[in-house]
């Protein structure tokens, strides 16, 4: 009975987050669609024709999984960091904190909201990509599991950022100075086999490289890295970040005095 009521609480958070994404669709859905269209036009169509093939595929085809994954990562992160921080800043997070809803479900609810937005935006970008190239899926199970797990990881990262943030500047620093460089250097636009040895080794330190390549493997069947290593890394990040978020919530870091 108690678990049932707590699951209703969890579903309420997810429904609330979904409603928010849909309510502000002009902010959540349109910008990634426009940005990715520009990427496809500039990198895929204009520059891509001169690049030729990469990994055995046309350049436009090669970058499509990376661009989809990039939008999933940024939107999963962005949804949770902005929603949770604004709820904290404007104090309506207290609605949940005073309710008999365990922190486990609050964390899971916000993360599920981030996954929902990540997947919705990923779907929109996939539709955009279909106007520019012929998409195919090599392994549907790998494609779906990797995109969901990656969205989960970055939703948790967004939540962690939001919990520790004290002002709005704090939620802009990580996406600008950490997330964007790691994403652009994470094999979205190129295969790391093109890089010098040292740069390749440095790239292997970037977790986003594993996520992008695993997703590309799911769609195109090619990858620069071992797919099982990618799963291991994503699962380790998922468990670690979830544990950290839960411990911080239980201690009330950033949300309780």
């Amino acid at each position, binding site marked *: 009975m108690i678990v049932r009521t707590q699951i209703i609480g969890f579903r*309420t958070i997810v429904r609330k987050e979904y409603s928010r994404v849909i309510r502000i669709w002009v902010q959540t859905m349109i910008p990634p669609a426009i940005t990715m269209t520009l990427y496809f036009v500039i990198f895929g169509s204009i520059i891509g024709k001169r690049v030729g093939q990469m990994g055995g595929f046309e350049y436009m085809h090669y970058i499509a999984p990376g661009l989809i994954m990039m939008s999933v990562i940024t939107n999963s992160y962005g949804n949770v960091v902005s929603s949770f921080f604004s709820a904290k800043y404007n104090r309506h997070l*207290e609605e949940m904190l005073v309710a008999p809803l365990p922190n486990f479900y609050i964390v899971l609810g916000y993360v599920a909201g981030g996954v929902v937005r990540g997947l919705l935006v990923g779907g929109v970008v996939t539709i955009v990509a279909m106007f520019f190239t012929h998409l195919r899926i090599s392994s549907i199970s790998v494609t779906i599991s990797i995109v969901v797990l990656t969205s989960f990881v970055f939703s948790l990262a967004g939540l962690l950022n939001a919990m520790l943030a004290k002002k709005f500047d704090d939620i802009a620093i990580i996406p600008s100075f950490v997330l964007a460089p790691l994403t652009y250097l994470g094999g979205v636009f190129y295969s790391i086999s093109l890089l010098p040895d040292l740069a390749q080794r440095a790239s292997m330190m970037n977790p986003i490289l594993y996520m992008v390549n695993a997703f590309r493997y799911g769609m195109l069947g090619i990858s620069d890295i071992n797919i099982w290593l990618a799963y291991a890394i994503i699962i380790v990040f998922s468990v670690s970040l979830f544990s950290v978020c839960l411990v911080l919530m239980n201690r009330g870091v950033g949300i309780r005095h």
Partner: protein
Amino acid sequence: MAMHNAWPMKALSIKNLTKVYSNGIKALRGVNFDVEEGDFFALLGPNGAGKTTTIGIITSLVNKTEGEVKVFGHDIDTELMAAKACIGVVPQEINLNMFDKLVNIVVNQAGFYGIPKRKALIRAEECLKQMQLWDRRQDIARNLSGGMKRRLMIARALVHSPRLLILDEPTAGVDIEIRRSMWRFLREINRAGTTIILTTHYLEEAESLCRHVAIVDEGKIIEYDAMDQILRKLKEEIFMLNLREPVDRVPDLGAYQVRLSAPHELEAQITRDQSLNGLFAELSAAGLEVISMRNKANRLEELFFRLTERKNNHESEIRSPGIKSPEIKSPGAIA
């Protein structure tokens, strides 16, 4: 049920509650008080006394340093979820999602308390109608007036039918008409069985509504008793008497100290061992006819100032809407 009537259960029990913030400020220094089930309880004190910290700990928004808090017997350390399920809270500061619709705010709150959506919609309608906000249910919270936002927070706090309702200055910034309708509503739900804890700066409000009171100052309870017992501790009161005919000098009223504040108005001080009957007898003997009278200051307010010993420093913080003149003088200052 019968057992509850014979020995009322404690809606709230607080023992040796201490809070030291990370910056070293000791907000609470061993607070102890109980609130019986069905009570209407006032938690009073000057700004920074520790009222909101106490409420924050009860509602788990603030981590306590030491002490014990039980809500209907549920210890917040061991049965936090059960304790939380009993409480509805209206915080001091507006904490609404300003971009959400009223109905969604209330329905979501019900969901956080585990109420299924269909039932939540029914409860939301009841609560919004009680707060006269049903017609505005599709508006976003941002478009509401200050008083409406306060009422929305009450509707939100009531949606899960809490056994204990905690209101932290619910009528701050609300006009007198809405304030009085809120009082009527709070009396109704209290009569229906909801235990209410109220903090307010309008001491007239506390005196009018509450049966028990705790006054907290500098993190300690300095007074804790039934309201009528507390008011008995007031040694004297000042009454403003409106006279039918003007007088040009202070009349001799025996043992009663009086001052002429205007040709038609006398200020009379009544000590605990005097009575109004005696005063009126003296007035009649002096040939003075009184057409109306009122307390110069709210009785609880007078007591509050004395207990907290901050009269001179904090006059501006305590507002009493029932008092025509904002000037509050000690009865001892009478001429």
